[in-house]
Each structure stands twice: as structure tokens, then as C-alpha cells.
């Protein structure tokens, strides 16, 4: 059975020593500094490529018309699929969820879905009969720690970039327009939550780091993931066990997290604007034509 390699005793010891005695991280980052965060959009709508240092994540949003759940006839369906393939690391198996995977998907679930970032009621087409099923697939291409924050950013980016086909209702007849006929429309988006994960080190968890890389994650004794939006609304906090940490420290973490979230959100906005411009100038018609060909095919 392929197993995950743990860092050696020397590495663990040294990492702690560096952090606690010298206050330096192996890559020379500040404790509250993220690795360079990069976001690129594909030609398709709703494809976000996010890289956070050596952690690379691809998120793809897609939509199809389907039947709403019986118990929620007025809501559309919104799912976030996080399946870790062996591409993440060879010990992940398809169809066999690991703890990492389940916890990740729960965090995204709570951060994006339960916090009502996407207006699911706007996905309803015909009450109880037809609705949009929006789905985001998170693909971890390379895992070098802090999947949560990267994945969350990718999901939000993909969803905000995504355009679903336009529809109309005339006397009870639902028509779904191809991109050729009508320019696809964005999703009903309410707010953009982001995850910020702190990792704690030391017997009392006194040392706190942002955006731990894989090595650091393997050595940490506890972690807390805080999800906020730029309006200072907490969407979710998860410190799922681990070594206890001073309550005050957690409060500090939260306030720092808020500033980070604001950075994220401005970065994302700028990227979206950039992309919109790119598509607009001239590219727009080409876009249509390209779509056109696809539709016929």
C-alpha cells in the first residue's frame, strides 16, 4: 500500500527550532504572509486556475437543467465536488474518501454553500419541475499544503466567472438559449467568502502561521480555518480539535484574517475586471463565433 512519507525527526525538530527560537520559516516568509497567489481564467467561462506557491488547484463550474429536490421545489441545486485524485498524492484513491477530502469538502460546503454565497432560489426555473443544477468540481493538481484556502478561492473565482445559459419562459414553455442565441448570464451572487487557515505550533500552540506549506502542515499541532467576507461577516470557523489555543489568540487570528480576506477579494475583483476587458475588446465577437461552432457540433 503506498503510504504517505512523514518528515524525518530532524526536519520536525529543526522546523520547530527555526520557528520558535529564530522566528524564521524555511522559505523566509513572514509568519502572517501567504505564498504568491495567482489566478488565471481559461477561455471557457467558469474555469479558474489557482496556484498558491506549489499548491495548484483547478476549479470548474458547470450547470445543467434538472429536477429540483422534492423537499425544496423552489431551490436550485448547488454542489461542490472535491474529489482528491492520485494526482494530489499517490496515496489518494478514486472513490475512497480520505479524512482530508471529507473535511475539505465540509469546509467549502459551510463556507460557500451554507453561507448563502450563491442565491439558489434564482436557479429555480419551474417550481418543483425544472431548475439549474450548478456544480463546481475542484481538482487538486499539486498539493503543497493549505488546500483549503486555495480551493475556496478557486471555487469562488470559478463561480463568479461562470456564465450559465440564458433562459426564458413563455406561456409555460421553457427555452434554454445557446450561447450563440443569447450571451450567457452570470449567477445570482450575494457575497464572496474566503477561507483563511492558521496553523499552530509548539506544546501550547503559541506560534501561529498563515498559509502553512505541506511540511509545516505535517508538523503543526492544531489549525483553525476562518471564513469571512469583505463585509466582516464570519461565515464559518472550524478549529476541529487539536492542541488547545488561547481564546485571545483566536480573536487576533480572526482580525488578521479579515484583512487577508479583503486583500483576496480585491485581487479577485481586479482579475475578473481584467478578464472581462480581455473578452470584450474584439475578443467578444470571436468568442461568439467560437461558441457558435461548438453549439452546432
Amino acid at each position, binding site marked *: 500500500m*503506498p*503510504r*504517505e*512519507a*512523514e518528515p*524525518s*525527526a*530532524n*526536519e*520536525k*525538530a*529543526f*522546523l520547530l*527550532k*527555526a520557528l520558535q*527560537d*529564530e522566528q*524564521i520559516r*524555511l*522559505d*523566509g516568509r513572514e509568519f502572517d504572509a501567504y505564498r504568491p497567489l495567482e489566478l488565471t481564467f481559461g477561455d471557457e467561462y467558469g474555469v479558474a486556475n489557482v496556484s498558491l506557491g506549489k499548491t495548484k488547484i483547478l476549479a470548474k463550474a458547470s450547470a445543467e437543467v434538472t429536477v429540483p429536490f422534492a423537499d425544496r421545489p423552489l431551490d436550485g441545486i448547488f454542489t461542490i465536488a472535491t474529489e482528491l485524485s492520485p494526482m494530489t498524492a*499517490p*496515496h489518494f484513491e478514486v472513490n475512497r474518501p480520505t479524512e482530508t477530502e471529507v473535511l475539505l469538502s465540509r469546509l467549502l460546503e459551510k463556507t460557500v454553500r451554507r453561507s448563502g454565497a450563491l442565491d439558489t432560489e434564482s436557479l429555480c426555473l419551474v417550481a418543483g419541475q425544472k431548475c439549474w443544477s450548478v456544480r463546481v468540481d475542484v481538482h487538486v493538481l499539486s498539493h503543497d499544503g493549505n488546500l483549503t484556502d486555495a480551493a475556496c478561492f478557486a471555487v469562488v473565482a470559478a463561480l463568479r466567472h461562470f456564465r450559465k445559459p440564458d433562459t426564458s419562459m413563455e406561456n409555460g414553455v421553457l427555452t434554454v438559449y445557446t450561447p450563440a442565441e443569447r450571451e450567457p448570464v452570470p449567477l445570482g451572487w450575494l457575497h464572496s467568502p474566503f477561507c483563511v487557515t492558521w496553523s499552530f505550533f509548539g506544546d501550547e500552540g503559541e506560534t501561529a502561521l498563515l498559509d502553512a506549506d505541506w511540511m509545516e502542515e505535517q508538523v503543526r499541532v492544531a489549525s483553525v480555518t476562518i471564513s469571512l467576507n469583505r463585509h466582516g461577516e464570519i461565515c464559518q470557523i472550524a478549529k476541529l480539535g487539536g492542541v488547545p489555543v488561547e481564546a485571545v489568540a483566536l480573536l487576533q487570528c480572526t482580525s488578521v484574517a479579515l484583512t487577508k480576506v479583503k486583500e483576496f477579494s480585491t485581487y479577485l475583483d481586479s482579475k475578473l475586471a481584467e478578464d472581462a476587458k480581455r473578452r470584450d475588446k474584439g475578443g467578444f465577437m470571436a468568442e461568439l463565433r467560437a461558441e457558435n461552432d461548438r453549439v452546432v457540433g
Partner: protein
Amino acid sequence: MSTESPLVVLPGESIDPSLIPTHHKNPLRLGPGLRHIPPSEIVPTVAGQLVVDNRKTSMWIEYNGGRYIPSQNDLIIGQIVRSATDFYYVSLSPYTPNATLPHLAFESATKKTRPQLSPGELVYARVSLANKHMDPELECVSPSTGKADGLGPLKDGMVFDVSLGFARRLLMAKSREEGKVEVLEALGEDGLGFEIAVGRNGKVWVNSESTKTVVLVGRALRETDEKNLGVEAQRKLVKKLVREMR
């Protein structure tokens, strides 16, 4: 790109017989990346640069990347996984079968005096047996002299992962001339004192009095490797890092 256009070969391409060195008595020695299909065909199995050494009548493929595959007499840095009755299980790289290191394969080791290694500790060892049908075997003592010559447990310090190619360059006899690795010398010239051990399996162990130094060396090595820095760039990098640290 270097001056003389290097000959890049892909797997399965036939090699121009004229290139194959011949010698009246020394047999031809094939290095990594080549395979001999009897009677006389020699075919590359990986993509890389064909290097021919006529004096040594040897030829091999120069390439970088991929996973470490143990071969005899490689020096490696391994991690103790657990101890069996009379040998340790040692991991050379993740997800690969463990190598075995006999308890007595240390300098002047007896049942009583052998080093007691616990899981997670590091050893600097030589591959004594590598065979595709068997898990590799290691030793921390030269069978001929019975001396350790530098091999054995590695205490403290830090391990940094580098590419296999870079590890090989660091291990070259004249790493500076042939391997174009300047960074270590540069660091030394800046008056940084540190010990270093390089494993063929892409691991570099660095230790020093000062934690800062270790981190600095580590970053210097990594960046040199990842950013493909040339001699001058390496010197610049070291300067920069040293400035940051101070």
C-alpha cells in the same frame, strides 16, 4: 543553450554507429538511459542528451528529473522507518519500497556497540545492492576498509529536497568546473560555516551552529536548482540572501 549543439535523443531513436566509441581492449561502458539490444544495437530509453566519452569508452544519457532509482554505490540520505530483528527499514523516497540497512553495517559495530536508531532518524549510506527484483540494501561502512568514511547517522541539521540532476552535480568530483555549481563556494566565501551531505536520491542535509545559516544554505540550494541559476546568478543570489539574513 551551450556552445556545441548537444545531441538530444528520444527513447527508441537509433544512435549513429559512428558515435559509439570503440577501443581495441576496453569494453564499451553504458551509463544510465541506454539499453543494449543484442547483437550490437544501442538504444536510448529516456529523453536526454547523449554524452560520449571516448577516453573511457563510455557513453550515457544526461537528463534530469524523475524518481530516484537506486543503483549500486550511490550515496543516499535515508530515513529510518522501523527496526527489524537485525536490520533497519530505510525509506529512500516516498511511496517506494523500503531499503534494508543491516544493524552491523556501521563502522566497528557489534551486537552491543551498534548505533540505536529510532524511526524518523536519518542516515547517510551507500547502496550496497541494487537489483530490480530485490529491495535495495544499504551500508554505512566500506566493506573493504571497514571505515565509515563519513557515512552513518546524521544528527540534527535539516534536509532539503533538490532535483536528482542537481544532486548529481553537487556530487561531481569537480562540481564547480563540470557541474557549474558555485553556490556552496559562494556561501563559504561569505564566512558561513556549515556541514553538508548530499544524497543521490535528491536530498541534501545541512547542519550548522546557527539555524539561520542552515535556512540560508537551504534556500540558496533550492533556488539555484528550481530557477536554473547560472554561475553569476548563483553568486548574486547568495549575496542577496546573506544581506536579508543580516
